[in-house]
């Protein structure tokens, strides 16, 4: 008896919950709807969003349904340290990117996308690498959130998977379409309140209902010595370390995070990031603890699928009212990320495709941009629903996007601090890093003999790059070089001859190492001296206070006026 059959919501219950959730978020979108929506507000909320909404939105966006499932899976697989190796590193990454966020915002105070900033810093190929990686990443994320919604609804209600996917897709599109990013962040706030409240209630409720703390003693035999060890090396090598490398890349490369960075009031960046760090950590680790409890209880996941663990625990131990709260928590987690993906995709197409590569910044019309943004959301939702039916391997796709972003991390960060980095160095370093990553990650070349040693040496450099970048944000160049160097030297004896057996971790580290080495080598002798002030001058709002949806001529005139400011000729 897994509890799932008996705990299904009846048709009126599930319809009531979905109407409550998506009807409520749609009502919010109607309340903040403007007759004349502004293209810049649609993308960034006017760069002036307050602390409460920003911190809530940053937390909600960073958490998707897979975060909850994966944290519990980590707890179930690796034991008591498992949730830490998923949630703590993910949380700390939000903190580690905060100094870079401050720098990015300082040099590009009114930008909309990171790719747009790369266009101003380098040129088209760098911009398109970032924009392309984000389109692929956000589509995959959208698809996986729809799949998670479909699976949850089919598990806990009489609806089937396809009906669940369509309901979630329609619900998210319905409330995000009109006001874009503004709706996304405001509903994120409501959703994160529901999620935090749910974690605060559900985890203790399951803990006591399942017979803990006594079950810690009666179920101790269900854990292997490694699972019972808080300092498990297996948990660190298989879960923690690959995740550290992956999430740093996600945090830097992902437009959903960058969009919130460009939206929050610049004086509130630090408290926003710190609060999101604590909020993410507590929520994801808290849910991950359900996996640890399941391990002590000797629970077997239904159908052998560990993604069923959380619904299974909830169905078995929660009364119907709390099960409804659990359902809202998961639907909130996946919807908040899905609406962020829609907002990110629309911004990329509005800014990086139409604004800078089709119309050109000077001729871009805010009204046309808004139409394109809304059409992008509709098309992206349709594509994600279609892809969801293909049952693609999401993990492989995410690993690929993670590596693409991993290859981008050093060139992107260096581009904000080092005047010598050129468009050629940026582009070549990313492409070469990807070319090396693919055979390592997917085992195209057997990792034996000298090949394995070379991969291990690159991994050692990758460790130095990752830790050096983290230190650089907080302490500057010299401490970063020392910390990165010491980390590389100290890890070498343990890594060389060994780490190439862990393809996921090696692949990520190799992507970091190769892009850093190539970018540095191509830039160090360059005579290029970029003026960072150019970025602020080349990026900025498309609409002004006087731009108006009904007056495209006025918008064009304003844009033309701005273009004169950007014109380098006297």
């Amino acid at each position, binding site marked *: 008896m897994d509890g799932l059959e008996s705990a299904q919501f009846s048709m009126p219950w599930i319809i009531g919950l979905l109407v409550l959730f998506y009807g409520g978020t749609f009502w919010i979108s109607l309340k*903040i709807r403007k007759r004349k929506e502004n293209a810049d507000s649609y993308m960034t*909320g*006017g760069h002036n*969003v*307050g*602390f*409460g*909404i920003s*911190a*809530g939105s940053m*937390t909600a966006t960073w958490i998707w349904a897979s975060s909850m499932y994966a944290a519990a899976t980590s707890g179930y697989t690796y034991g*008591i340290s498992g949730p830490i190796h998923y949630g703590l590193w993910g949380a700390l990454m939000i903190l580690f990117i905060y100094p870079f966020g401050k720098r990015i915002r300082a040099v590009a105070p009114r930008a909309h996308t990171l790719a747009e900033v790369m266009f101003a810093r380098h040129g088209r190929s760098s911009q398109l690498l970032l924009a392309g990686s984000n389109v692929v990443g956000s589509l995959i994320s959208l698809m996986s959130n729809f799949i998670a919604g479909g699976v949850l609804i089919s598990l806990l209600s009489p609806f089937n998977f396809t009906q669940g996917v369509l309901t979630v897709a329609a619900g998210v599109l319905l409330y995000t379409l009109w006001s874009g990013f*503004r709706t996304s*962040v*405001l509903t994120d*706030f409501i959703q*994160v*309140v529901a999620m*935090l*409240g749910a*974690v*605060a*209630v*559900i*985890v*203790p409720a399951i*803990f006591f209902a399942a017979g*803990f*703390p*006594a079950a*810690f*003693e009666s179920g101790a035999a269900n854990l292997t010595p490694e699972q019972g060890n808080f300092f498990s090396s297996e948990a660190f090598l298989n879960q923690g370390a690959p995740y550290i490398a992956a999430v740093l890349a996600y945090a830097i490369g992902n437009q959903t995070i960058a969009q919130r960075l460009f939206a929050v009031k610049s004086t509130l960046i630090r408290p926003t990031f710190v*609060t999101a760090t*604590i*909020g993410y*950590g*507590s*929520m994801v*680790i*808290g849910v991950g*603890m359900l996996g*640890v*409890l399941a391990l002590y209880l000797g629970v077997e996941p239904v159908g052998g699928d560990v993604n069923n663990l959380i619904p299974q625990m909830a169905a078995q131990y929660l009364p119907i009212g709390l099960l409804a709260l659990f359902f809202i928590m998961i639907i909130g987690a996946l919807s908040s990320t899905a609406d962020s993906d829609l907002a990110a995709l629309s911004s990329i197409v509005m800014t990086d495709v139409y604004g800078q590569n089709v119309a050109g910044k000077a001729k871009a019309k805010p009204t046309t941009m808004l139409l394109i943004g809304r059409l992008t959301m509709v098309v992206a939702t349709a594509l994600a629903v279609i892809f969801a039916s293909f049952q693609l391997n999401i993990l492989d796709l995410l690993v690929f996007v993670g590596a693409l972003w991993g290859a981008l991390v050093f060139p992107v960060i260096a581009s904000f601090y080092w005047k010598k980095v050129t468009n050629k160095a940026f582009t070549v370093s990313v492409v070469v890093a990807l070319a090396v990553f693919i055979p390592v990650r997917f085992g195209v070349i057997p990792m034996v003999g000298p090949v394995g040693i070379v991969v291990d040496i690159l991994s050692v450099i990758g460790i130095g790059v990752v830790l050096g970048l983290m230190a650089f944000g907080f302490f500057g160049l010299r401490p970063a070089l020392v910390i990165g160097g010491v980390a590389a030297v100290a890890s070498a004896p343990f890594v060389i001859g060994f780490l190439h057996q862990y393809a996921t971790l090696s692949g990520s580290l190799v992507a970091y190492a190769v892009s850093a080495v190539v970018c540095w080598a191509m830039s160090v002798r360059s005579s290029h001296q970029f003026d960072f002030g150019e970025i602020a001058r080349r990026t900025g709002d498309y609409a002004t206070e006087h731009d108006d949806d009904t007056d495209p001529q006025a918008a064009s005139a304003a844009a033309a006026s701005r273009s004169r400011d950007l014109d380098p000729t006297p």
Partner: protein
Amino acid sequence: METIALSAYVLIWPLIALGVLVVITVAFFKEWARSRREGRDII
């Protein structure tokens, strides 16, 4: 002793989540009240 430590380890996270919930909710309502006083949208 180990049971108490494990219980605290599991239950501390919902407690922190509750703390974050209070912080961002209070901040939101302060911002909402301020925006109403100033006659502008909260976002």
